[in-house]
């Protein structure tokens, strides 16, 4: 069993109102060193697959076809043993 961990983030030029709201809250809690916050998704996918190359290419397909909306999102992933 392998596990893919996909990190999906909003493209740089897409506004992230949620990140901004969290930033404000952090600052009002006294975390003044926080200068920016962006909120994305972390998607774990358990794969019945032992070949990590194969897993990698399939996970890429999953991202392209469903997990990520390329109009507003970027992604990266890694594969780990489970």
């Amino acid at each position, binding site marked *: 069993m392998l596990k893919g961990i996909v990190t999906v983030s*909003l493209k740089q030029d*897409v*506004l992230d109102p949620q990140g901004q709201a969290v930033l404000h809250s952090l600052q009002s809690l006294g975390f003044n060193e926080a200068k920016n916050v962006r909120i994305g998704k972390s998607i774990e996918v358990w794969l019945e697959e032992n070949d990590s190359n194969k897993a990698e290419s399939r996970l890429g397909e999953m991202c392209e076809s469903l997990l990520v909306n390329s*109009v507003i999102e970027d992604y990266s992933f890694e594969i780990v043993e489970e």
Partner: protein
Amino acid sequence: MMRCAVIVFPGSNCDSDLYKAANSVEGMEAEYLWYTSESLEGYDAVLLPGGFSYGDALRAGALASQAPVLKALRRAADSGVYILGICNGFQILTECGLLPGALHRNSGLRFICDTVNLEVVNTDICFTSGYSRGAKQIRLPIAHGEGNYTCDTDTLRKLEDNAQIVFRYSGNNPNGSLAGIAGISNSKGNVLGMMPHPERAMAEWMGSSDGRILFESLMMRT
């Protein structure tokens, strides 16, 4: 008779509202069609209802845009069948690429249910021709958490140049959408996606009857 299909996805919840609205327009006849259907043969128009298809998991409309019926929907769009996506229906249309851009979380971060003022920017397409008679300022309900339309600057320019922006919020922009966009069409004008709910504005007792004109326009298409 204009035959319309109201597509029902798991989690659609404005399907019956859309069905009632369409059937209340003279000359229009709507029926439900299950999301697994492979053909849209024989329908003049396809209506994608609001709601939370697949619970809006991942992104609103994302999972529905992979449903079996979408293949037929793409063919129908190509062949000029009228396609109207309302709210979640609009989100499905952007997710599947029939309309450009994306709808993300409201800038206020909260779901918002209200009745808003809109400008009908383009009254030349089949969905909006009825608004040309001076009714360009209208009131329609909205109810969504992810209606914040966004796209890149090139796309925005194209939308503007081709008169694809069909509805804009006038006055207060409830969700932070780019250029106040509330609804857009494809370049041919046969596919319309909009966040406001015309099917919730079919009679005065509902608070507005401005939505009826949209269905009537579609009925009267030339």
